[in-house]
């Protein structure tokens, strides 16, 4: 178990991180520390040339003699998958049998999540995308065009897989998120090679973004993706360093009622990390939960109604205002952040939030810093998040 | 020959879960019905007529005593044996939309036929004879639900005839009928007794009607012993007045 997390802990340190970012795939680099480690997934010992992930925790990647070994796990389903990426067919020892072998670069794949196909589009590999899911929610104009042309098919709607289309596309790999067991079961029935992609379960912004590196390995475009991620990482750390421990920190709360329950991000979640890195004091930072916590309205009022800021996302194609928020629930109007007009808002319909924000954690962070500490980034133009605008005059 | 014999029969209810608490409706009953006889059971409401009927039909256990049908103790008969000994016409409504008269009458043959319900020549003959006797042969292919109440009652009697049991019980057969139909029905039942030597026991409130047609009258009243006699006897010795109470006496 501990071996699973060690890479993250170490790379938290900035200095070492810089050192590591110099390592690239293809460099044969014997490195003291790595040699001393053994890949614990198999019983046999392999010479590990390089350990590859720096932030992501759901995936462990090792450069070995035969290719790249991946161990991907989903705490959601307790599933662990093992993959071996190889750019040329080489004979591998018997103990690699439990690894699903994937010949790279791939020539065609199905990417069920937008966080899989977005980086493919960005690195100009859209011709590899054979199918996606839930096309009704696509924001990206390039993807919309590909769908309209028919060069990309929608193979899953409302969580239900179109078995026939999926089979007929004959993808070399299907990238899937381990969230919906029902859908996964349908996928398994196709008999096609699957690749688990639990990126959304990463609870650090850089961890989520780091999954784009896997796209690089799968497509043989690692030079591009490694540079891309280095840039993201650099930018993020630069912004994070603007915030010092001693700065005054405004309190922030998050989310609104859904089915009369509030699902607020846990203290160790992705958003909680963003809040912290942006120099805010998150109301529920204290708990150890990485997912979300369900709270009722009374708890919310007693714990959070006096928070300085309030982070709200909403999915709508109409303008959204304080008035709309109040119409959803009168009680919202009594919150301090509402009274002071300090609601940080993201319309997930009108922005490519779900598709691209994952690969721009530095932009997300900058959005928040610009709102929470305007003097630090006076020139910043908001991309995803901004203070909710007053579109209807006050009463 | 005694077709039905009630010996020291006690009817009533046991409290559920408390077998010692019983509600006995009448004093012990001793009575019998001869073969080919038509007996009417009458009495005011709450006398226990329905309970007695259910007990004789084997649908409710007797508290004490025993019932003999054609010399066999009721409790020793299983459901299948009983179904060939005694047929009943209930007041229950049959509402199925596609049941024809023939279907219903042929149901009387179920105790005799196998799982696949193939009717033999004999079965068919019995069914048609039963319909003929009940005077409904012309309705054979009609839907049961499309008949009048009087016709329906006759169909059910034909069904009981097709069941070919020595004893036929009819629970309030005249309850929903108009006057001519009632008369018609009782004449038919009497005729059947004579022609087929069937034994008929029926319950009824229509005293004036049954007095004219039945051989024997059984009277019941709450907490009074069951008395049996010819209608003439029971009228003359004023037992009827006694069992039906003053209100009835004035009407007579």
């Amino acid at each position: 178990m501990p071996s699973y997390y060690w890479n993250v802990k170490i790379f938290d340190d900035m200095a070492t991180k810089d050192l590591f970012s110099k390592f690239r795939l293809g460099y044969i680099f014997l490195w003291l520390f790595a040699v001393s480690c053994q890949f614990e997934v198999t019983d046999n010992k392999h010479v590990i040339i390089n350990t590859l992930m720096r932030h992501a925790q759901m995936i462990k990647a090792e450069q070995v003699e035969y290719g790249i070994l991946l161990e991907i796990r989903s705490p959601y389903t307790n599933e662990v998958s093992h993959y071996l990426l190889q750019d040329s067919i080489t004979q591998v020892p018997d103990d690699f049998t439990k690894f699903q072998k994937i010949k790279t670069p791939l020539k065609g794949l199905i990417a069920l999540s937008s966080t899989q196909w977005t980086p493919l589009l960005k690195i100009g590999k859209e011709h590899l995308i054979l199918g996606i899911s839930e096309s009704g929610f696509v924001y990206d104009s390039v993807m919309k065009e590909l769908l309209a042309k028919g060069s990309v098919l929608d193979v899953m709607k409302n969580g239900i897989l179109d078995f026939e289309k999926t089979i007929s596309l004959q993808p070399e790999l299907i990238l899937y998120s381990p969230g919906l067991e029902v859908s996964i079961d349908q996928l398994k029935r196709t008999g096609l090679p699957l690749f688990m992609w639990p990126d959304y379960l990463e609870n650090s912004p850089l961890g989520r973004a780091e999954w784009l590196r896997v796209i690089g390995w799968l497509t043989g475009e690692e030079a591009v993706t490694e540079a891309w991620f280095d840039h993201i990482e650099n930018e993020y750390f630069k912004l994070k360093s603007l915030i010092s421990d001693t700065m005054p920190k405004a309190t922030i709360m998050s989310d609104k009622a859904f089915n009369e329950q509030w699902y607020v991000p846990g203290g160790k979640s992705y958003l909680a990390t963003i809040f912290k890195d942006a120099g805010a004091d998150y109301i529920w930072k204290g708990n150890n939960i990485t997912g979300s916590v369900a709270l009722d309205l009374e708890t919310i009022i007693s714990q959070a109604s006096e928070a300085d800021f309030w982070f709200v996302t909403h999915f709508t194609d109409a303008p959204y205002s304080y008035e709309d928020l109040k119409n959803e629930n009168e009680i919202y109007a009594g919150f301090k952040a509402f009274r002071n007009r300090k609601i940080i808002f993201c319309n997930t319909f009108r922005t490519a939030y779900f598709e691209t924000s994952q690969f721009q954690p530095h932009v997300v962070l900058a959005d928040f810093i610009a709102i929470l500490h305007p003097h630090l980034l006076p020139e910043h133009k908001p991309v995803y998040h901004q203070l909710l605008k007053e579109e209807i005059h006050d009463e | 020959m005694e077709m039905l014999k009630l010996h020291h029969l006690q009817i009533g209810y046991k409290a559920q879960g408390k077998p010692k608490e019983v509600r006995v409706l009448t004093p012990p009953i001793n009575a019998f019905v001869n073969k080919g006889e038509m007996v009417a059971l009458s009495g005011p409401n709450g006398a226990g007529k329905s309970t007695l009927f259910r007990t004789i039909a084997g649908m409710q256990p007797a508290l004490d005593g025993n019932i003999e049908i054609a010399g066999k103790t009721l409790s020793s008969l299983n459901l299948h044996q009983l179904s060939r000994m005694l047929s009943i016409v209930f007041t229950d409504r049959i509402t199925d939309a596609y049941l024809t008269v023939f279907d219903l009458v042929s149901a009387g043959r179920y105790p005799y036929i196998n799982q696949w319900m193939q009717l033999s020549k004999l079965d068919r003959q019995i069914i048609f004879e039963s319909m003929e006797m009940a005077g409904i042969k012309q309705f054979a292919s009609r839907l049961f639900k499309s008949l009048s109440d009087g016709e329906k009652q006759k169909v059910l009697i034909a069904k009981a005839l097709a069941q070919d049991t020595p004893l036929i019980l009819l629970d309030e057969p005249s309850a929903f009928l108009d006057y001519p139909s009632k008369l018609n029905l009782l004449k038919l039942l009497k005729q059947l007794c004579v022609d087929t030597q069937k034994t008929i026991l029926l319950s009824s409130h229509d005293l004036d009607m049954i007095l004219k047609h039945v051989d024997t009258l059984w009277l019941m009243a709450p907490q009074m012993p069951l008395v049996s006699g010819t209608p003439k006897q029971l009228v003359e010795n004023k037992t009827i007045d006694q069992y039906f109470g003053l209100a009835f006496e004035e009407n007579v």
Partner: protein
Amino acid sequence: MTNKRLVSVFLLIGLGIIILMMANIFWGSVLIDPQTVIQILFFNDEGLTGESLIIWDYRIPQLLVAVFAGAGLAVAGLLLQTLFRNPLADPSILGISSGASLGVALLLFFSGSFAGTVISSLGWIGSLGISLAAMAGAVAVLFVLMAASSRVNHIVSLLIIGIMIAYLAGALTGLLRFYSRKEDIQAFVIWGMGTFSGVSRMQIPYFVSAISVGLIFSIYLSKSLNMLLLGERYAENLGLNTHLITRLIILLAGYLTAVITAYAGPIAFIGLAVPHIARNLFKTSNHLVLIPASIGTGIILALVCNLIARLPGFEGSLPINAVTSLIGAPFVIAVILRQHKSNSIVS
């Protein structure tokens, strides 16, 4: 109905089933030309791995599930309508489907929110786990019903108990939803939409034989069912052990519903609509005819619904539940209106 007409209606239904089965095999969201389909079906499928997979692993299993689910639900509905002598009785009315839903809700929601690691480490996630949970829920309700049936004297009381169980299970499911994660709710919603394509090729033999056993057994109940049409008391007077038969019927209808719900989710309306259509088509109350008639009509309805769900544009994602209700409801209304009309002419 004369024997001649009986035979011709059955032949017509048989023909309809064959045509619909062909349509279901030849037509799908991916176009495979008929020659290839025939090649795959009857000759070798060398070099046609994709198409062969679509036909053998998807279209044919889906077709078989539709056929047997349609037949099973129709018979379950007929059994219950006769038992309760109530035209509104169907497999969902006794709370059996609701019990299955509760079982699935418990699995999905508890595995997510509370005992996640425990349940999922047992490998109880995925369709097999869901099937087992649905089965467990349905069987639990069945158990309660059987216990109740020995304690109540009237069939109507039993019906009311069944309806109350349905409400109870529904309420508990609602309560569970309230405390659940969005992903789990979505999984539950997807399950609730029903599907004929949830059974893999490997599981098909089990499903088909489980339903077949139930269907054959139901035909053996024909005579008892005919007697029950006259009411419990007449049935008993004709030599039927009504207590035993009541339990057998509930057990059989419950078994069919449980198996189908486990594999295909809660499929609405077939159980309610088909017996009405079958009765009206054959104008009979004889279960020896009605049971095969319901089986045939159920198969037709299920196959038609399956085809509609696969219409271009829906791409197989149209919930089968919506389609069955959409097709079934107008049918039942038409049947009832026609019946009403013929009634008033006679009387």
